[in-house]
C-alpha cells in the first residue's frame, strides 16, 4: 500500500501541476479538497481521468467520488480494491 500511495502522490503532482510540491509534502490522510491541498472542481475531473488512464477504473457512481477523493490514502484504498491494470 505504501508503494501505491507514493505512486499516486507522484501521479497527482504531475497531473495537477503541483510543481512546488514533492510526495513528502503531501500528507496521505489530509483532505484533498477545501483544505489540505485545496484542490478544485477541475482537479477532481483530472483525478477521475487519472484513475481511468492509469488504473482502468471508471467511476460510474458520482456519489462515490466524495469519499474516494477524500485523501490520497482513500484513493489508494479504492484503487487497490478496484484496479483493472
Amino acid at each position, binding site marked *: 500500500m505504501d508503494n501505491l500511495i507514493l505512486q499516486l502522490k507522484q501521479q497527482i503532482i504531475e*497531473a*495537477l*501541476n*503541483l*510543481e*512546488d510540491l514533492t510526495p513528502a509534502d503531501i500528507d496521505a490522510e489530509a483532505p484533498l479538497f477545501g483544505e489540505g491541498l*485545496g484542490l478544485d472542481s*477541475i*482537479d477532481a*475531473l*483530472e483525478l477521475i*481521468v487519472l484513475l*481511468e*488512464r492509469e488504473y482502468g477504473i471508471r467511476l460510474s457512481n458520482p456519489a462515490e467520488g466524495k469519499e474516494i477523493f477524500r485523501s490520497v490514502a482513500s484513493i489508494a484504498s479504492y484503487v487497490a480494491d478496484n484496479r483493472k491494470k
Partner: protein
Amino acid sequence: MKTIAHVRVTPEGAVLDGNHISDASITGLYREFAGDYPKFFKMDNLCRLGFVAAELLLKGTSAEDRADAAVVLFNRNGSLVTDRNYQKTISGGDFFPSPALFVYTLANIVTGEIAIRHKIYGETSFYVMPAYDPGQMDDIAEDLFLTSSPSFVLTGWVDYNDDNDYLADMKIMTR
C-alpha cells in the same frame, strides 16, 4: 492618454519602466516577484506570462483603482500551444481528454486570471491579431475611455510560442 507603467518580459528577462530588473524565466519571475499564488502552477504558459507581467505592472496601483480598471490584451497565436497539447490528449488510441488543459484552450483566459488575482471588475477582452500592431492596440484600448470610465487600462501584447519565444509587452494607460 498617458502611460504610467510599462513592462516587457522575454526569454532574456524582465524590463520594467526601462530598467532591466531580472534575467529570470517566467517561473523564475513568479518566484522572485509573487510566489504567493499556487494557482500559478496550474496555468498554461500564456497565462503564466500575462500573470507575471501584470504582477510587475500592478505593484504600484491601489486596490480601489484596480477594482475599476479594464484589461485588454492582444496576441497573434491565441492559445495555440495549449490547443495542441490538449489535442494530443484526444488523438490516437488513448482518449483521455485533460480537463486541466481544456480550460486554457481560450486565449482570453489570461485576462480572467489577471482580473481574479487583482480583483479587477471592469471590462476584460482579448483580441487575436495578424501581427503586432501597437497603433491599433492603442486605438482599441483608448476607445474604452470613450465608452466607459475605467480608472486605468492594463493593455498590451502577450504571446507565447515556447520557452525560447515569448513576449509580454504590457502597460498601464490612464486618461
